[in-house]
C-alpha cells in the first residue's frame, strides 16, 4: 500500500477541524496575552538598564525550562490557585486544558518579544529622539510617532519568532488536557502510527508558516504605510480564528468525556469505552494523551468523567503508600480511600498492566532463570533498561531491597524501544509492562516475583464524583468489567503497535469488543500469584 493511499490520512483529516481549531485558539490567545504583557514591559524597561536585565534574565530562564515541563508545571500551579480562590472568594475555575496551556505558552512567547522590543527601541539613533523632543513632541508622541515606528521591523521579527515558537510548543499542551495538533503526535508516537505523527508535524508547520507570513504582511504594511497590506494580514489572522471557531460551535459538545493517558493501551481502552457508551445512547468523546499526574486531578475536578487507571499506580501516587498488600486487600483499601474523595472505583477490567522484569525466553531458559530470585546471581554482569521513571519509582527500590539486585549498568529508554533492545541483546533485562504486546512478539518472558515486591496493577475503571450516581453510565460500562484478560490485552496492544490502518486505536477497540463482547461468560476467576510484575510507564 502506498503511503498516500493509506486510509489513516483520511482518519487524521477527520480530526483536523477539532485539533487545528483548538490549536489555533490556544496559540493565538497565548500570543495575544504574551504581547499584551511583553510590549508594555519592553517600553517601560527600555530606559531602565537594571529592570531591563532582570526582565530579560527572567524571560531567558523561562525559555530554558523545556516546553513540556513548563506546561506541566502550570497545571498544579493553577490547581493551587483554584483552591485558593475557592476558599477565599467561593469561586473556582478549571485548571485543566485551555487556561494552563495559554498561560504557559504566553510566558514562553515573552523572551523574543521582550528582547526584540528592547533591542529595537534601544537601537534608535539618540539624535532622532532628541529631534522628536526638539520639534515639540511629548514623551508619548515621541514613542508613538518616532520610536515605535522605527523599532517596528525589529519588534515584528520578535513577534514572528514568538508566534512560530508558540505554535510549535502548543503541540505539547495535549498532556495537560488542551486538545491541539499535538494529539496527532502523542497518539501517533504511542501507537506507532507514523501517518499521525507526520500529519501533526506537517499541520503545525504549515500553521506556523501561515501565521508567520500573515504577520510579515502586517509588518511590511505598517512599514510601508500600506493600509491594504496591513488589512489583508489582519483579516487573514481574523479569518483563521473565525474559521477555527465555526466547526467547534457547530459541533454539539458530548456530555461524557473519557480520559486517556499517553500510551497505546489507554487509547484503545478509551475508544472501547466511548463506543460502548455511544452504543447505549450516551454521547461520549475521548480526551487522550493526558499526563498521568493531570488525569487523576482532572477526574477529581470533573473535567473528565471517567478513565482507566491501575491500582498500584494510585496506591503509590495518590495514597502515597510504600507498603505492598495482596491484590484483593489493596483494591478494597483503595476503593475506600477513593470513595472519600467521591471517586467511584467501578471495577476491574480483568488484566494487570504491571512492571515486570523481562528477558528473552531462550536466554532465560539457557540460564535457568524463571524468577527474579534466579536472576540475582547473574545481575553483576547484566545491564537493565527501564522507562524514564522506573528507576526513581518505589517499585524499583522495593525490588532491589527484596532481592538485592545489583546490575552492572542501568539505562533509560523510550518504552517502545526497550523490547527491541532486550530482544537484540543490547541490554540483558528490561523493566517492561505485563500487558505489552511486544512481549509475545519478541518471544520474551516475564520473570516471577515470588516475594511480591511489586504491588498489583489491576486496570480499574474510575468515575468522576459527579457521575457517582449515574446509573445509565454504570450500566453501559458493566459489560466491560472482568472481561479483558492479560492475553487479550497483550494481543490488542500488539495490534495497536502495528503500523497500518488496522492498528488505529479505534480499529483495535472494535476488534477488542468483537473478542470480549461476544463472550457470554465472564473470565474464570484468576488464581493469585500469577508470576509477573506490573505496571507501565508515563504513569507517574
Amino acid at each position: 500500500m502506498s503511503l498516500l493511499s493509506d486510509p489513516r490520512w483520511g482518519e487524521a483529516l477527520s480530526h483536523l477541524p477539532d485539533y487545528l481549531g483548538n490549536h489555533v485558539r490556544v496559540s493565538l490567545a497565548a500570543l495575544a496575552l504574551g504581547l499584551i504583557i511583553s510590549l508594555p514591559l519592553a517600553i517601560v524597561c527600555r530606559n531602565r538598564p537594571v529592570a531591563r536585565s532582570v526582565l530579560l534574565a527572567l524571560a531567558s530562564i523561562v525559555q530554558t525550562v523545556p516546553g513540556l515541563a513548563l506546561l506541566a508545571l502550570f497545571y498544579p500551579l493553577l490547581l493551587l490557585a483554584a483552591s485558593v480562590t475557592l476558599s477565599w472568594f467561593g469561586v473556582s475555575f478549571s485548571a485543566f486544558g485551555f487556561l494552563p496551556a495559554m498561560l504557559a505558552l504566553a510566558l514562553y512567547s515573552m523572551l523574543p518579544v521582550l528582547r526584540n522590543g528592547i533591542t529595537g527601541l534601544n537601537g534608535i539613533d539618540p539624535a532622532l529622539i532628541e529631534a522628536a523632543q526638539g520639534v515639540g513632541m511629548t514623551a508619548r508622541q515621541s514613542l508613538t510617532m518616532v520610536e515605535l515606528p522605527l523599532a517596528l521591523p525589529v519588534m515584528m521579527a520578535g513577534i514572528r519568532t514568538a508566534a512560530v515558537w508558540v505554535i510549535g510548543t502548543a503541540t505539547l499542551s495535549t498532556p495537560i488536557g488542551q486538545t491541539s495538533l499535538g494529539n496527532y503526535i502523542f497518539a501517533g508516537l504511542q501507537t506507532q502510527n507514523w501517518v499521525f505523527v507526520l500529519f501533526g508535524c506537517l499541520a503545525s508547520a504549515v500553521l506556523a508558516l501561515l501565521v508567520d507570513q500573515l504577520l510579515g504582511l502586517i509588518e511590511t504594511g505598517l512599514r510601508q504605510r500600506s493600509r491594504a497590506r496591513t488589512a489583508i494580514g489582519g483579516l487573514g489572522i481574523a479569518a483563521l480564528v473565525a474559521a477555527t471557531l465555526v466547526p467547534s460551535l457547530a459541533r454539539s459538545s458530548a456530555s461524557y468525556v473519557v480520559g486517556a493517558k499517553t500510551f497505546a493501551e489507554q487509547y484503545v481502552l478509551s475508544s472501547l469505552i466511548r463506543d460502548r457508551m455511544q452504543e447505549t445512547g450516551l454521547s461520549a468523546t475521548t480526551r487522550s494523551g493526558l499526563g498521568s499526574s493531570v488525569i487523576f486531578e482532572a477526574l477529581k475536578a470533573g473535567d473528565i468523567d471517567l478513565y482507566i487507571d491501575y491500582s498500584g499506580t494510585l496506591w503509590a501516587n495518590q495514597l502515597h503508600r510504600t507498603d505492598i498488600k495482596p491484590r484483593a486487600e489493596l483494591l478494597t483499601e483503595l476503593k475506600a480511600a477513593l470513595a472519600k474523595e467521591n471517586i467511584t472505583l467501578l471495577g476491574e477490567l480483568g488484566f494487570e498492566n504491571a512492571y515486570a522484569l523481562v528477558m528473552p525466553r531462550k536466554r532465560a531458559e539457557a540460564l535457568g532463570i524463571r524468577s527474579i530470585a534466579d536472576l540475582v546471581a547473574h545481575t553483576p554482569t547484566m545491564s537493565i533498561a527501564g522507562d524514564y521513571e522506573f528507576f526513581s519509582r518505589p517499585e524499583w527500590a522495593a525490588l532491589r531491597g527484596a532481592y538485592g539486585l545489583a546490575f552492572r549498568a542501568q539505562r533509560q529508554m523510550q518504552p517502545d524501544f526497550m523490547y527491541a533492545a532486550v530482544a537484540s541483546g543490547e541490554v540483558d533485562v528490561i523493566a517492561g509492562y505485563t500487558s505489552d504486546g511486544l512481549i509475545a512478539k519478541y518471544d520474551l518472558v516475564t520473570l516471577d516475583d515470588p516475594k511480591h515486591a511489586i504491588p498489583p496493577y489491576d486496570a480499574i475503571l474510575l468515575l468522576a464524583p459527579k457521575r457517582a450516581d449515574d446509573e445509565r453510565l454504570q450500566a453501559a460500562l458493566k459489560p466491560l468489567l472482568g472481561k479483558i484478560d492479560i492475553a487479550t490485552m497483550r494481543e490488542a496492544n500488539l495490534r495497536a503497535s502495528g503500523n497500518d490502518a488496522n492498528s488505529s486505536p479505534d480499529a483495535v477497540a472494535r476488534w477488542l469488543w468483537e473478542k470480549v463482547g461476544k463472550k457470554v461468560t465472564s473470565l474464570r476467576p484468576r488464581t493469585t500469584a500469577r508470576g509477573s510484575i506490573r505496571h507501565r510507564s508515563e504513569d507517574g
Partner: protein
Amino acid sequence: MISYTHVAKTFGRVVAVDDVTLDIAEGEFLAVVGGSGSGKTTLLRLTNRLIEADRGTITVEGDDVGQVDPVALRRRIGYVFQSGGLFPHLSVADNIGITPKLLGTPGDETAARVDELLDLVRLDRGEHRDRLPAALSGGQRQRVGVARALAARPRIVLMDEPFGALDPLTRDALGDDYRELHRKLGLTTVMITHDMTEAILLADRIAVMRAGKLLAQGTPAELAESSDAYVLELLRTPRRQVARLNARLPQDGAA
C-alpha cells in the same frame, strides 16, 4: 529676545556651561563659536530645555523658560539639528509639517504651508514633497531641516552646527539663503558653529566660548578689540587662511 543670566550646567564632574550671561536682541543673528567641549551646544539646548539648567535664569520672549511647559516652549522655537535630524520613516512633507501637526493645525492648511516652505528653502515641490529623507542629498536634507524649523512660524530659530557636514559650495549657498530668510522673516537666530569664517560671514554678533565660559561677545570689529589671546587667535584664523589662499591662487583669473 533671549537672555541668559549666570547660567550653569554640570554633567557629573564636567562643567559644561560655567556662569554664562548673554543677551540676544530681537532680530539679531548670533553665532556662538567654540571648539568641541566648549559648551556651545549645551548652551543652545538649555534654551529650549532639551537640557535643564542647574543654575541661573534663561528667558525667551520675556518668559522664564523654567516656568513654562517645555513642550509648548519647543513648539514655538525652531530648531535645526546637526545633520538634519529628519525622521527617516516620514516623507519630506510629513517631516516639515510635524510641528503644525502637533499643534493641531488642519491637514490642508499644513499641506499649503509645506509647499510654501519648500519654495522658501528652494526645493522643488513636486519633486521632493513625497520623498523619504534617505533619497535626498545632504544639502537637501538640511534645507528640509530648516523648513521644518520654520513650519510653525517661530520667531526664534536655534541652529546646532547646521551646515557643518556639507560640502563647501552647498554650505555657502545654504548659509546665504538662510541669512536671507532670517532677514525676510524677521527671525532671531542663534547658530552654533566651530567655524569662525562662517560666523563672521553670517552673524551680526559673535559669542566665543571655551571650557564652558563665555570669553567674549560682540561684532567682529568689537571682538578684534578683545584682550583674550584665544579670541584673537580665532579671529586671525580666517584672515590667515585667506592670505595663504591668495598666495597659492593666481591673482587674476576665474578663482
